[in-house]
């Protein structure tokens, strides 16, 4: 389809004899919020890692904005417009919140070695522009202060927000969120869910999230894809997924579906 931002065709990843994802077809319509769910070990993170260039698929194609990205290195994929967060927060702990966001802008800035050493006006302008944007992003993501604090010293919820700010700094078209509400309390989770919707609307993004919390998944996503043992077992709107027997079976066991 022409309005799909990302299309995965028969994507397969094998680790030795283990088939982590088995010929998965998957599409993300532009501007939507899509969720990828499934029990532990279903291949969600493997799939995620193939989209972000950490793994190269054994076979299959991944088209982003019409361009093949499978097998490209992570930084090249970021350049094309896919930003991500991590399941277990991976901030640069010893860097300040500001610096974390500035690193996210790396591929959007151009200063080189000589320019930086000489302090050329072009580089200075770029830096001050980047600083200003980083500040705006932090405020936007709900971090109005403590910009000069080390990322590792921020409270858990703020670290999650900082991860989103850093991912947004890469200026993505597609934002991948890997279990973003893990470890949050119900209030924080609710805040975060509405925040995701807000980012999508205001920043004109497409969002793919992996999530365990069914409340979040059902509440925020427009389409859901369910994986189990590396296979896609269902795909559809939240209402369809909720009624799907195979999904109920996968999550609750055979007896529950009957």
């Amino acid at each position, binding site marked *: 389809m022409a309005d799909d931002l990302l299309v995965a065709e028969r994507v397969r990843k094998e680790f030795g004899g283990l088939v982590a994802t088995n010929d998965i077809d998957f599409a993300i319509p532009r501007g939507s919020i899509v969720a990828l769910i499934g029990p532990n070990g279903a291949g969600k993170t493997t799939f995620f890692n193939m989209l*972000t*260039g*950490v793994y190269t698929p054994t076979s299959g194609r991944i088209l982003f904005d019409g361009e093949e990205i499978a097998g490209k*290195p*992570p*930084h*090249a994929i*970021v*350049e094309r417009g896919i930003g*991500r967060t*991590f399941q277990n927060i*991976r*901030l*640069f*702990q*010893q*860097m*300040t919140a500001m*610096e974390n966001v*500035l*690193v*996210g802008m*790396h*591929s*959007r*800035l151009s*200063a*080189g*070695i000589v320019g*930086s*050493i000489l*302090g050329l006006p072009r*580089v200075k302008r770029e*830096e001050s522009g980047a600083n200003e944007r980083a500040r705006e992003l932090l405020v936007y993501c709900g971090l109005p202060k403590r910009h000069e*604090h*080390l990322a*590792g*010293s921020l*409270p*858990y*919820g703020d670290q999650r927000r900082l991860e989103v700010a*850093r*991912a947004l*700094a*890469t200026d993505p078209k597609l934002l991948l969120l890997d279990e973003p509400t893990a470890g949050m*309390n119900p*209030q*924080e989770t609710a*805040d975060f869910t509405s925040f995701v919707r807000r980012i999508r609307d205001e920043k004109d993004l497409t969002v793919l999230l992996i999530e365990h919390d069914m409340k979040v998944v059902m509440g925020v996503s427009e389409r859901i894809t369910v994986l189990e043992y590396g296979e896609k077992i269902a795909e559809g709107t939240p209402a369809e997924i909720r009624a799907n027997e195979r999904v109920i079976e996968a999550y609750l066991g055979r007896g529950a579906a009957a």
Partner: protein
Amino acid sequence: MSEQLATLKSRWAEQPEVVRRYALPAGAIVLAVLYPFYVDLLPGFPVTSIAVVMLVFTMMALGLNIVVGYAGLLDLGYVAFYAAGAYIAAWLASLHFEDISFHFGAVGVADDAPGIHISVWLVLIIAGLFTTVVGILIGLPTLRLRGDYLAIVTLGFGEIIPQFVRNADEAGIGFDLTHGTFGINPIDSIGFGETLGAVGLPDVYRTSSSRAELFYWTALALLLFTVFCSIRLRDSRLGRAWIAIREDETAAAAMGVPLMRTKTWSYAMGAFFGGIAGAFYAVYKSGAFPADFYFQFSVFLLCMVILGGMGSVWGVIVGALILSWLDRAGLAELGKEFGDLVGREIDVPKYAFGIYGGIIVVMMLVRPTGLIPESRHKIEMEEGVHDTPLYDVQHEGPGTGRIRGDG
């Protein structure tokens, strides 16, 4: 006393930003520039000719700091860049290639002398560029590795290059490239030549009566150049990417930092300064000798970086000055005093590496972030990291009285 200190501190805080930022470095530079004039008044301080070596070692340590401190790549073969720089000076400014006679701006050399004689100023630049290329060539295959594996491979390169220069003579490769274990000497002196000499600049350092002072000021200028570049790089887009790689390589890549390119640049920049320092040191000693390029020297430089504080420019300077002073003069002097004290003659410099090892062990136990930690570590000490309180303490603990979620 503490009151006075407090008033002094508040006075300092009232000073304008420019003063607070530049006063200390400016003062340090003035003191350093004038050092040859007052060193005689200070008993125990190293004489100018030794201070030259200390400055050169400090420059190398700062180069290594870009690799180890900024980018977090453990390099145990940094001596390779020192060797490369030294041999560039030996090839391009000596009698070594006697079949060729090529002169370009060299000073203090007879016009018909055989060999290549290029102005040492140019040689320093060529050495820097050449070692940058060597750094990139060594970096490309090795920097795909991480952590310990990288350290082992760099160790290998640090051994290969000295072995190569020890053996690259007639007997070894059929062409006398490095003159084997004898090394290459003499190397031409640095200087401004007769034209500029006429307006008061020193024409040839080595024959000047104030030889040590001239080399000292030149070394100081090179060091200040290194410091300046180190700071500018640290605060740049590239410097941030280096530190991000040091913190979390996977996350850095996922944020758009090209790992190979960024790591290779850190290697190249480290090599650049190592090469210039190596070439300058070879010119100062007037020779490139393979005996200087042992593994121990890489470790010695690494000790300077660790002692001072990895990633901290000022820390590395202090660490390098202390260790190079101990190496060149301090241990012998301290040893003599210690010997007098116990009434026996003890050859303390013989135990140098045991002593450096001891210093590192003590440092790691007492002050693991170094003498002057990188400023981000200082924030860490003041704020604490990681110890996010338990959920209920954080949200409903005494003194807060409200749940944070509504804020």
